[in-house]
Each structure stands twice: as structure tokens, then as C-alpha cells.
């Protein structure tokens, strides 16, 4: 299932194969982004590696199956190896006369324990029983062999004997395929294993910590388990095999529950096995605690920006029309339609107001067309302008208020960038927006608000907030300066770099200790 760096996949970044046996300082484990998806977490990983030039890295990227996609990032010079772990590339066919292990029940029971409850001890049980079976059946063929059949039957009997076996079987294959791939993957040697999410990447990091005795660390931008839960609760592709109606406490476990429990269990396993659990802002820690992360492990390292880039930008004056701007891609998650509706409401109060939308429009052409139609319907062609991809530095001196109408964010860089330029911000209450705009409760000294936070999908609130700032230059200046001071104080790139340098230094120096995990009793 996995492909080692010695045989790079099609389109994969090529790395010197000679370095594969060397021990890197940090092995980064990332799922579904770097180096193939631009922006967001990928950009952060690129930044992290480049800003730690004295640290050597190896990278394991988890991807569904071999890809022909071209990487969007050039691997920095301090990356020693790059490997793929394919989660949905279901191994090889079993050969004829494949030997079968005498007993697969212990492995099946351990797997059931892991996906239902999670935990480092459960993972240790799975690893031990998997190793025992691997002596008889090659891991690469196990998932398609009679061994897997025996396992799925036993797990079915143990967990959902009343459910449709067919649905269970296919759900099991999809769910456990990734786990098998994670179990059989040959770990690169490293001093620290750093996963960027829970899920399968988190399980691999947990396995590395148990197997090698080296420390594992987790950095979560968004809460992966929560994202999966939302996706699974809304998924149409998952069959509801038990008629529960609107009952929320029906004790009969269904496939949807099984999936959600599995990802929660993976998260629990990762949180237990990792010595440090890092996130970008405090609100995220609430979810991490709920999922089992213990207080001493929790740490916040905020993203930072380079203040120098924004230091020479002058505040927009009265010589330009009152202008608000949304900086971001034109996609549904940014709720650009609420911004346009807010522009419509704003125009009723400030007829010469302008609304800029600075960002690429080609990612979701259908949504962009809908936005254009909305602009036409509301007769806002003279007010709203889609600029496409631009250098925001060229526009910032013409913007009085920046706006973010997103439905979901973690720690949006645009808020920091606007703050560095002294532009007040109106944002929906998502991710760390409130924390950046209003400051943490324990902020010393308290800097005051740097803008206004609104509800989600509330265009009238947004229009009110923007109108308030546009009508009052003194307030606008005050908020802009407060935001600038907060960004300078808390959200600089240098601070983030120093925090990771310190974290890596501490973990690399940590002695190896194989945890004495007793296999879990089921």
C-alpha cells in the first residue's frame, strides 16, 4: 500500500534516495494537503520547514491513492526524504496457497477495541497482534485475503450483529483500509514525529511513538475530528441501516455512528500518544479537551506574519470613496453572498460606498456566476468589484474596513495582515477571529477591540458594523491601531518560529523511552 521514496510516485517530488536510511530530526506526517494542495496547512508546512533551516525533515504524506497531481511546493533543501502512504490503495491480491494464521480473533478483537474506544494501549494491542499475523501473511496482501474476511466477520458479530452485513462490509473496508495501510507502513527514522492532524496521520504518529520510543507532537489547525464528524453527520453516501427517526439516543449503533466513533477513537489515540498537543488558538482547546487531550499537553502557538511587508502602508483617507473589502477566494465557505447583501444594505446608508472582493474567482465558477448574478439583481455593479487575484499590498491603502464573512476558518491570515496595516476588521465569529480582533481574556495590557465581530450569515449586522466604522474616522483609527498593536505583540512570524525552534529542540533532546503499554484488555 505504501510507496517508499526510493520509487517516487508519478508527479511526486523526487528526493535523493541515498538519504532514506538516515535519521531526520523531525518526521512530518500530513494527510491530504502538502505538497499537492496550495494554501492553508500546506503553506504553513512549507513555512515551518523553511524557517527551521538547521533542522532536518522527512515527510510522510497520506493520500488516498497514487496521484498524477503535480506538487505545488518545491521541497526545501533540509528535507531528507519524502514518502507516500496510500490509504485507499487496497493492497495486492493474495497469492494461491497463501498460508493462513491459526488465529485471527485476537487481532480482530484488538481492532474492534481500537475503532470503538481508541487509546494508546489499544493501538499497542493492535500492533502486537498485527505483528503476530504478519509472520504468516504478508501485510500487503492481508487486506484482500481470507484473513481479512475472518476479521470482518468477527468484528461484525462483536459490534453490529443486527446491521446489514453488506453495508457493514463495505464500510469496514473503507474505514479499516486506511488503518491497515497505517499499520503496515514502514516508518522513516526520526527523532521526533510531528503530525499535523489526528485521523490516520495521528494514528501513524502514535504508532511511531509506541514503536520507536521517540516523542510525537500534534499541531492542529482546525479540529480534524470535528470536521470529520460534521462531514459524516451530513453525509448522504453513508447508509442509515437502522430506522432511528428523530431519536437522538437510540442505543443501536449504526454505520454512521461507527465512522464517527472510529475517528474519535483515532483522535483519542493520538492525543494520548503525543507528548505535546499544539493548536493555533484557545477556542480549539475546548474541543481537544472533550476528545481526551489532557491539560499539561495543551499548547497554543499562533500563526504569525511578517510585519515588515505591511509597515509602509498608509491608512485610506477621505480622498477615496468609503471602501470595504473582502480578501479571499470566491467560494461558498467564504459566504461572499452575505458580503454582497451587506454591500446592498450599506449602499442604502452610504450611497457612494464601494465593496471590493480581492481574490481568485476560478475555484468555483458556478458559485462565482451566482455571485455575479446577485450583484446584477441588486443593481450593485457600480458598487461591488471582483478584482480576481491581486497583490493586496497594492489595495490596502484604499481600504477603510476589511470584512470576513466566512462560515469557517481557523486562524485567518487576512485578519493579521489587515491588522499589520492598521485596517480595522469586521468578521464573523469563526475560528480565532474574536481572539484576534478583541484579544484574549488575559491580554496584558488590554489593547481594546480592533474591529467588530458579528454572527454568521448576518449581512445586516455586517453592514451596520461597517457603516459605524466608515462614519467615524476616529473610531476607525482607534480600532485599526489596536489591531496593529495586537498583531505586533502576539502574531508575528518571528514568535511562531521561535516557539517551534524551542519545541523541536526540547523534543529532539528527549531520551528515547519505549512506553510499557500493556495490551488492552477487551
Amino acid at each position, binding site marked *: 500500500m505504501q510507496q517508499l521514496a526510493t520509487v517516487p510516485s508519478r508527479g511526486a517530488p523526487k528526493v535523493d534516495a541515498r538519504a532514506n536510511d538516515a535519521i531526520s530530526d523531525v518526521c512530518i506526517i500530513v494527510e491530504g494537503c502538502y505538497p499537492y494542495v496550495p494554501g492553508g496547512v500546506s503553506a504553513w508546512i512549507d513555512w515551518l520547514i523553511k524557517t527551521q533551516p538547521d533542522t532536518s525533515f522527512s515527510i510522510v504524506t497520506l493520500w488516498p491513492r497514487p496521484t498524477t497531481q503535480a506538487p505545488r511546493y518545491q521541497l526545501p533543501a533540509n528535507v531528507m526524504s519524502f514518502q507516500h502512504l496510500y490509504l485507499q490503495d487496497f493492497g495486492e491480491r493474495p497469492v494461491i496457497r497463501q498460508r493462513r494464521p491459526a488465529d485471527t480473533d485476537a487481532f480482530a478483537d484488538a481492532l474492534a477495541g481500537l475503532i470503538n474506544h481508541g487509546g494508546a494501549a489499544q493501538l499497542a494491542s493492535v500492533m502486537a497482534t498485527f505483528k503476530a499475523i504478519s509472520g504468516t501473511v504478508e501485510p500487503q496482501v492481508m487486506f484482500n485475503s481470507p484473513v481479512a474476511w475472518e476479521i470482518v*466477520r468477527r468484528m*461484525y*458479530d462483536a459490534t453490529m*450483529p*443486527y*446491521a*446489514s*452485513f*453488506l453495508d457493514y*462490509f*463495505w464500510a469496514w473496508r473503507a474505514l479499516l483500509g486506511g488503518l491497515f495501510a497505517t499499520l503496515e507502513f514502514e516508518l522513516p527514522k526520526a527523532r521526533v514525529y510531528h503530525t499535523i492532524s489526528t485521523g490516520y496521520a495521528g494514528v501513524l504518529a502514535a504508532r511511531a511513538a509506541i514503536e520507536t520510543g521517540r516523542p510525537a507532537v500534534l499541531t492542529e489547525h482546525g*479540529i480534524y475530528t*470535528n470536521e470529520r*464528524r*460534521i462531514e459524516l*453527520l*451530513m453525509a*448522504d453516501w453513508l447508509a442509515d*441501516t*437502522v*430506522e*432511528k*427517526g*428523530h*431519536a*437522538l*439516543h*437510540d442505543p*443501536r449503533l449504526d454505520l454512521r455512528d461507527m465512522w464517527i466513533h472510529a475517528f474519535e477513537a483515532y483522535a483519542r489515540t493520538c492525543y494520548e500518544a503525543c507528548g505535546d498537543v499544539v493548536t493555533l488558538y484557545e*477556542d*480549539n482547546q*475546548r*474541543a481537544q479537551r*472533550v476528545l481526551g487531550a489532557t491539560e499539561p499537553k495543551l499548547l497554543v502557538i499562533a500563526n504569525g506574519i511578517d510585519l515588515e511587508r505591511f509597515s509602509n502602508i498608509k491608512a485610506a483617507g477621505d480622498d477615496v470613496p468609503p471602501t470595504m473589502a473582502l480578501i479571499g477566494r470566491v467560494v*461558498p*465557505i467564504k*459566504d461572499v*453572498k452575505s458580503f*454582497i*447583501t451587506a454591500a*446592498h444594505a450599506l449602499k442604502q446608508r452610504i450611497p457612494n460606498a464601494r465593496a471590493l472582493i480581492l481574490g481568485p474567482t476560478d475555484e468555483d465558477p458556478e458559485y462565482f456566476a*451566482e455571485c455575479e*448574478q*446577485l450583484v446584477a*439583481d*441588486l443593481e450593485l455593479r457600480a458598487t461591488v468589484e471582483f478584482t480576481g487575484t491581486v497583490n493586496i499590498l497594492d489595495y490596502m491603502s484604499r481600504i477603510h474596513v476589511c470584512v470576513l464573512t466566512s*462560515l*469557517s476558518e481557523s486562524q485567518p491570515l487576512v485578519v493579521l495582515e489587515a491588522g499589520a496595516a492598521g485596517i480595522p476588521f469586521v468578521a464573523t*465569529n*469563526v*475560528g480565532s477571529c474574536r481572539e484576534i480582533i478583541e484579544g484574549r481574556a488575559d491580554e496584558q495590557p488590554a489593547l481594546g477591540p480592533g474591529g467588530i465581530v458579528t*454572527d*454568521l*450569515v*448576518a*449581512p445586516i449586522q455586517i453592514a451596520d458594523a461597517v457603516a459605524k466604522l466608515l462614519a467615524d474616522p476616529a473610531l476607525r483609527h482607534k480600532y485599526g491601531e489596536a489591531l496593529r498593536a495586537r498583531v505586533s505583540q502576539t502574531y508575528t512570524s518571528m514568535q511562531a518560529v521561535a516557539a517551534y525552534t524551542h519545541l523541536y529542540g526540547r523534543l529532539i533532546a528527549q531520551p528515547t523511552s519505549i512506553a510499557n503499554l500493556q495490551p488492552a484488555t477487551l
Partner: protein
Amino acid sequence: MAAPVLPATHPAPPSRAKGGWAVERPNASVVLNIMLAATAEGLLAFGYIKATYDWPVFLIGHVALVGILALWVAAVGRAGGNAALPLLTAIAVSATGPIGAVAALITLAFSRPALEDRLLLEAWYERIALAVDTDELTQLYDLVATGRTADLSSESPRSFSAIVQTGSLADRQATLGVIARGFHPDYLPALMLALKSDEPVIRVQAAAVATRVRIDLRRLVDRCATSGGQLAPGSSAAISAANQLRACIASGLLDESDRIRAGIVADRLGTAPSRVDAVRLRAEPVADRLSIEAMLLREGRFGAFRIARRIARISSTGLYRVRRLARAAAPAKVDVTGGAR
């Protein structure tokens, strides 16, 4: 031939071990051919033992017979038949001559009617491979047999809005999942509360649901705008549609242009109650009449409400008379008097 009904929950292939080592029971021609082969081998052996001919003749005869058997196996295979027994016979005869032929005859006694099992096995495999759909009857059978139907003894669902405000985190998330998967405009107040929740996790999920629901809302507005022209204003269907549109508008999830369009359609469909006439209202089913009355109360149109109640009361007696009286100063659009006799 229809595939045998097989419970979807069947976790294992149908057993093939009922009669020991099973070979499908052959048809008459196969039995006859095996008996002929056994007889031929027996005669060959008998002739050699009695020294009727020398061993080369015996060998040639044996090889010829094996060749014929091989051709038979190939013919059965080409015809798509079960070649197991012919192949077994050919191998046994070629290796051990008459003894093998006798062994093949003995095998006949152990064969069993495997056709049913084979069909069952094929049906099982097709179901496992998702190559066939399960008919509704089988699905229903599965649900009942395995206890996956709705639990009628469970407690009634709580108000979604109440759960979103005071429920546990898991309950709130599950509720939002239900709203997303089975959207109805009546769920919008709960969704709006979730969007304003203090819990970030709930806000994020509510936002994801809102993104998805917006598509449903737009479809609903389109549908009402299209079919609204065919609905008689004031009819229960029109009022129901108008109420749904108003719920959509109140949610704030509609695009501004859709909101304006929905408002126009809702006003057109929902203005009719003031023109409700006795005959149509009388014809409404009880549930619809109650729905109209509830709307009149909600909108504070108590005059129209009183008239509606009066009509309902008169109608319920079964004996009534409706008269229209010319009243110059009467502002009411509906003027109904009458009485039971």
C-alpha cells in the same frame, strides 16, 4: 430463474460442506457416459487378462478411451456445463484404468443436488459484490428480522430548538446532522439558534449545514414561484407554501434577490384568507382548516378568525344555510349568516 431470497445480514457464504466433498449431481447423459467408460475399460482389461490380445493392443485401447474422455470434458466445458465429474472420470481412468472408472461410478453415489446451493452461492456473491439490488420485500424482511425498524417505545423527539439551546454537545451535533440530512423549513429556527451558539464547534457545524440548506431553500423558492401560480390563493396548499416561504425569509439564509422574490410569492399566496369564502373553507379538511385558523390568529386577524370558526361550527352540524345579505356599511369581505335548524 429468480435468485433465492437471502437475508442481507448473511455474513458467511452458504455452507458447501453439507454432504462432505460434494460434486453436483450429474444429468443422465453424464451417468451414461461414465458407465460406458467403465464398461469399455472393464472389457479391455478382461480381454487382456484372458490373453485375447497382447498389452500393446490394451494400451492403444486405453489411450483411445482416455482421448475420447478428454474430448468429452472439453465439449462439456465449451457448452458451459459442470465439467467436474467428467474431468474426474477422465483423470481416474487415465491413471488407473478400470479401477478409476469404477471409482468414478462410486463418486456418483456421493454426489448431491448442488444446483440450489450454487444459486444461493451466486446470489450471495452478487449481493456481497453489490452487483444486484435488493427488492423492497427483502429489504423490509431484513429490517424486521434484524430489529432495525423504528423503536416505537422510545421517547418522543424533543424540540430541535430546545436541544440546540440546552442539549449536550453530542445531541446538538446530532440534531444539526438530522437537519442537514432531512431538511424542512420548520427546522430553520433551530438552525439560526445554532449559528449564534456560544460553542464554536456548534457554530462551525451550523455554518456547514447552512451552506447546504441554502441550496434547498433556493429550490423551495423556485418551486413555490413556479407552482404558486397554479395554487388558489387562500387554499391550504397556498397558505402552507406561503408559511414555508416566510420561514425561509426569516432565516436570513436566502440570497437578497431570492428573499425579495420569496416575499412577493408569499404575499400573493398568503393574502387570500381575507377572501376566504364559506364554500371553500367548508370544503377544507379539518387539519387544513386548523392551519388556516392558526395563521389568522398569528397574524392578528381576529375578525376573519371568528368568521372561520363560525363557518366551521355551522358546517359541523350538517344542517345549515348560507345567505348573503346586502349590508351597505359592512366592511367585511366575507359576510356569512345563517343558522342551524
